């Protein structure tokens, strides 16, 4: 809060999170027209086409995977986890920014979130969808994935509740459920708006069904506010807990380079870091293509950049601490794990991730860079690459060279490793582009509350 006040003092324009001149109807018109138009911009076809193409790669890769087995990947003894778990952690992490924006910032009454929370939440949902597939895809016998759930088995067999993978099942499925519900509840008033504006009968019926009879009565609004606050309250701990549980996959194991108590905060910070990078990667092209600079202003980008900088510094601290702990522990295996990470077969990945995650984001200290969308987009891409590499290095380099030197072995990714990874990017893009074509990517009613005339007298007086 203090930060924002300072900024306000520096740049005292009243319209910093929404451009001046907007009215209730112009906001509604602009956002709804992205959906309710006959003219789909070429950008959309480009993005959606790319998504579909990559989705095709996904279909081929996973079909082969299911038919032949995980042998098509580069996995081996001792590196039994590779791209699949890396991608899982990476996608789950990306999802975190959406939840943080929609839940925590809502509770903290950060008004600037109103114009980015909708697509950030959609991003969360699709990222979790991508992430959630990997624990199944990476199984040797994926058709038995349901054995991880505690369903009433006739043989009386339960999952092993001591295994972090079972905790993952609960954490991720809870996360997916809450995110979906939160997102959908937030959509209801806007769905009603679309229903009311729809010229096409079919669209009217579909939006009408989805709007669940929303009429915008005071009673509705009151219930809605309560529900969204409650859901925000439920979602808030998830921001911290999901990635904490994911990090347990590593910390609970005794593998040097994994077995470490600072992984939970380190992973959560990393998750938010990559998540905000993804928000920027999505927001910057979208606002320029759809002319939404008035709603997603430079201030938003600036704020996201600052969050990235802050979480990036936490991540940098974690890297330093990791190296320090390796040395300070006096444990030969821990020290060797860090040593191998920095100088071993994965040193190029390690130093790239340091460059991407620690060195490059230092540019975000400069306001000029935060206010240049192209540069911000670039640095977000760098951070996304860096965070992916971070997960890869933690998982693979630790496994490749652990305790018994005779069993050391190097992981080499195959084309199918890449196929599945790029395939989930395709799935994400496909879903996301369908979302921006079919649903308002910015919350209409919440943005309208940002207008000066939406403020009640008391607020105006302040």
């Amino acid at each position, binding site marked *: 809060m203090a930060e924002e006040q300072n900024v306000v003092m520096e740049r005292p324009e009243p319209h910093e999170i929404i451009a001046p001149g907007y009215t209730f109807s112009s906001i509604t018109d602009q956002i709804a027209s992205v959906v309710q138009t006959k003219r789909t911009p070429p950008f959309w076809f480009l993005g959606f086409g790319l998504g579909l193409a990559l989705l095709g790669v996904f279909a081929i890769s996973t079909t082969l995977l299911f038919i032949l087995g995980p042998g098509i990947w580069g996995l081996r*003894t001792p590196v*039994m986890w590779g791209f699949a778990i890396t991608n899982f952690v990476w996608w789950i992490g990306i999802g975190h920014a959406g939840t943080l924006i929609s839940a925590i910032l809502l509770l903290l009454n950060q008004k600037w979130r109103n114009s980015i929370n909708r697509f950030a939440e959609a991003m969360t949902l699709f990222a979790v969808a991508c992430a959630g597939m990997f624990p199944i895809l990476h*199984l040797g016998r994926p058709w038995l994935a349901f054995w991880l759930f505690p369903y009433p088995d006739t043989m009386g067999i339960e999952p092993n509740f001591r295994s972090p993978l079972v905790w993952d099942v609960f954490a991720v499925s809870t996360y997916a459920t809450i995110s979906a519900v939160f997102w959908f509840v937030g959509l209801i008033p806007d769905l009603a708006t679309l229903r009311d504006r729809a010229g096409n009968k079919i669209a009217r019926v579909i939006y009408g069904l989805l709007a669940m009879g929303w009429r915008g009565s005071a009673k509705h609004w009151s219930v809605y506010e309560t529900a969204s606050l409650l859901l925000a309250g439920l979602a808030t701990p998830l921001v911290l807990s999901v990635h904490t549980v994911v990090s347990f996959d590593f910390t609970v194991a005794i593998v040097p380079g994994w077995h470490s108590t600072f992984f939970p905060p380190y992973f959560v910070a990393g998750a938010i870091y990559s998540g905000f990078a993804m928000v920027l990667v999505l927001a910057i092209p979208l606002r320029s293509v759809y002319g939404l600079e008035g709603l997603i202003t430079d201030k938003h980008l600036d704020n996201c950049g600052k969050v990235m900088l802050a979480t990036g510094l936490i991540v940098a601290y974690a890297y330093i601490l990791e190296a320090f702990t390796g040395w300070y522990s006096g444990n030969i295996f821990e020290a060797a794990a860090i040593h191998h990470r920095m100088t071993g*077969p994965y040193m190029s990945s390690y130093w790239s991730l340091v460059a991407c995650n620690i060195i490059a984001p230092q540019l975000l200290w400069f306001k000029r860079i935060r206010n240049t969308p192209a540069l911000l987009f670039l640095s977000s891409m760098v951070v996304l690459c860096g965070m992916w590499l971070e997960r890869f290095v933690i998982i693979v380099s630790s496994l490749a060279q652990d305790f*018994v030197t*005779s069993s050391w072995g190097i992981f080499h990714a195959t084309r199918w490793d890449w196929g599945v990874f790029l395939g989930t990017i395709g799935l994400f893009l496909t879903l996301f582009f369908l979302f921006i074509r079919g649903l308002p990517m910015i919350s209409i009613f919440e943005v309208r509350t940002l207008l000066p005339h939406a403020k009640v007298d008391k607020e105006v007086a302040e």
Partner: protein
Amino acid sequence: MSQTPKKLDVAAARARLNGTRGREFWRNLEELAGTPEFQDLIEREFPRQAIGWGEDESPVEGRRNFLKLMGASLALGGLAACTRQPTEQIAPYTKQPEELIPGKPLFFASTMTLSGVGTGVLVESHEGRPTKIEGNPEHPASLGACDPYTQASVLGLYDPDRARVVSHQGEVRSWSYFYNFLAGLLEQQKPAGGAGIRILTETITSPTLAAQFEAVKKFYPAAKWHQWEPAGAHSARAGSQLAFGQPVNTYYNLENANVIVAIDSDFLSSGPGWLRYTRQFSAGRRVGAGRNTMNRLYVAEPMPTPTGSKADHRLPLRATDIEEFAWALAAGMGLASGPKNGDNHDVFKWIGGIAGDLGRNRGASVIIAGDQQPPVVHALVHAMNDHLGNIGKTVFYTDPIEVGSNDQVASLEDLVKDLDAGSVELLLILGGNPAFNGPVELGLRDRLAKARNRVHLSLYEDETSEICEWRLPEVHYLEGWGDARAFDGTVSLQQPLILPLYDGRSAAQLLQMLTDAPERSDYEIVKGYWAGVHKGADFEAWWRRSVHDGVMADSALPAKTFPIKFAGISEPAQKPKLHGTLEILFRPDPAIYDGRFANNAWLQELPKPITKLTWDNAAIMSQATAHQLGVEPSNMLNLGMDGVPLVELTYQGRSLRAPVFVQPGHVDGAVTLHLGYGRTKAGQVAKGMGFNPYGLRTAKALWHDVGMTAKKTDGLYLLANTQNDHVLDTDRHLVHQGGLAEYLKDPEAVHAGVETPPPGLTIYPGWDYKGYAWGMAIDLNACTGCSACVVACQAENNIAVVGKDQVRRGRAMHWIRVDSYYSGSANDPAVYNQPVPCQQCEDAPCELVCPVQATTHSSEGLNDMVYNRCVGTRYCSNNCPYKVRRFNFYLFSDYETPSLKLLRNPDVSVRSRGVMEKCTYCVQRINAAKIEAEEENRKVREGEIQTACQATCPAEAIVFGNLNDPASRVAKLKADKRNYSLLGDLNTRPRTTYLASLRNPNPDIEV
């Protein structure tokens, strides 16, 4: 159809079409197609509807019938589809075969031969299917142990690529057809006394075959018998000729040998009797329980071998320098006037120390010369052993065990002469593959083809079969009767376990065809021979006893002494000089021997001792030599992915391209090539694997020579090895080791620097084992790294073969691996072997992390793996600090090949794709013993359960048993001061523990 139309006359039609061309031809064809005859033909060939709608049926009836039948077919088809089962004939025992209880295996004694020399085995048979080979404890060469070849021989039996039919010039024929041919030919040969008959075999020790050769000689006195054993003991034979003037068989008793000098001899993992030698050698190194002395082993060798890895002092020498070493040693003990110094200082540096040690242990020492060393070294060694008074104490001589012991190279050259002269009418090649493995300059491939009639009896259709118009399938040793002598002459019988799978015949049966009783079965031949030898009323009982025991009592050849003729060994020959070239070394491959096991996937995939290379041979050289040639692999840590450079080796004008493998401890300036690879005509396993050093191997230099040049060529070659990193990181304390003297002073010295967590560190309560608590102890001081355990485990536990590509990708499936570690300088490191099965931890990291409880702790302390429950998250493997878990990345098990189904151990699940597996301590054997004990209302006895690896271990390095029984061997070993847990500081509390390795260096030798 009231009248039957005329049948189509094809000849007439053809005549009608003949002479027509172009449009006319087609018109004629159309006309022909229109004729009623042709229509009738079509009607008969392709009836339009089987039933109904015919002219003789009313339309209504026909349609109704049609619909009825269709309906019924559909209904029946649908029913059948629900319960479609493969048709299987079940044949219950109407009369139970004697002693056979379905589900319980029976064991029969038999004999496996390698290079003619027999080793006794016990074969496990499940309802008539041999599935597993164990050593025969009664047999002197086995003592219950087995070598990798023997362990893998059961896969050889079921190999789908085996030769299956008698064929003549590619046409399938019957045995009687072949016999008629042979009889006709023999009839022609009879008048000339069989002058055109040549028989080519490998080395043979079988007394029955010997008698048959005698019999054949009687019928055809002018026929000649030649032998060729590519990896045979040619030099040893010549050496004894040199020393004693006659061929002599040498064997050793290492029980009382305090000092052993191995002169380029890998007596701990190759050669006749090595299993016994290893047993005795390891017994001589067992310290503890009142024993505080150890034998001492000196090894001089070019390429590190399991024997070299056990050496207290290992001297890497080029093979051509070793003769000088032998002379120097003889001079050092005052036996000969040899040189005291030469251009290679290494040869002489330890002579004083070794000679002194030998001198102090007269009658309790032994010098062993390797088969690959020239005859003069063997002669010198005979003289030295004699000088040390070892004869009759540690070294024994008998008459040769082989039949017709002669110079095989000369004999082969003789055959070549006859072939060139065109005087060979019939060439019978009984076993062996001379066209592939003969000396290269003899060009046997082309030469053998000069025989007018060529017959090859062989297990496989190989390079020799290719040039023989008669190819006869040979029986596997588990399919036919036979006999063989062991290293000391002991005769054991080869008893078949199963009828020949592919209508094969044995060499004995084929030889029998040359006599007047051609139809006798192999049983009659073998038994008939022994009935002639063991005359008397008790023959039947004696025979039964011998078949049952697998060994003929007191059949060992009597030990003799032979006077040494020093005349032949008076002068050291001029040592061949390198002159800037390299030394070329040929050695039998540790896994596929001379190439005969090339189609055995278990052996191909067996990580070779020390190098851990699979599926290939390589140009093995030292780092310095590789550096000098500019072919140093950029990264020895990742041969499977980065590849290694190729060199072109040129020797005597012939050259060969081979991948480079850098081996620490290999002598500089030499390149070792393992024989047997590069097969051109072989089964699907052997094909395309490795390169063929026989292409450089001449009769003059069967084992080594100088004068090879090497140069780097383009390209990289991917090698599949199972261990990349061999450097022993002493901070990790994986192998605890130390000197004997230090150990005796302070037993804790071997564990110096190791942290052991205090007991009770964990907050969880410990497991309570009321009944049994199984545990294992592995004595690193005994283990030689021979890798027999790896194959034994593979055979016992239905472990899948994954192929070179998958091994390269780090997916070999062996449940037990033998790690090799090097410590010290790269030129001459100390080598440590460490077998690693599942450690069966008390606080098992794998059990904790499995989300579906597919790996759980049993009430007897095993980490059970529940294959059916496993979904394949592979988390357990990640969390296993010992990396003993193996994952089925693909469907590695062969579910298709019918013959391989017979091979499976019915007591062990065949694992499917996506499932984790690992060592179970042979839980099926544990349970079998427990059931038996329970039936008899007693506890399982000590020693009743032997895991597969333990049972086959010649060094008795692996001991398994009940930890709850303080009197058990394993409990005692765990109380030994040398006992330690691998990665003990992780507090996983493994059930498998190790006993530290000790070395017994000579204090007189400065290292």
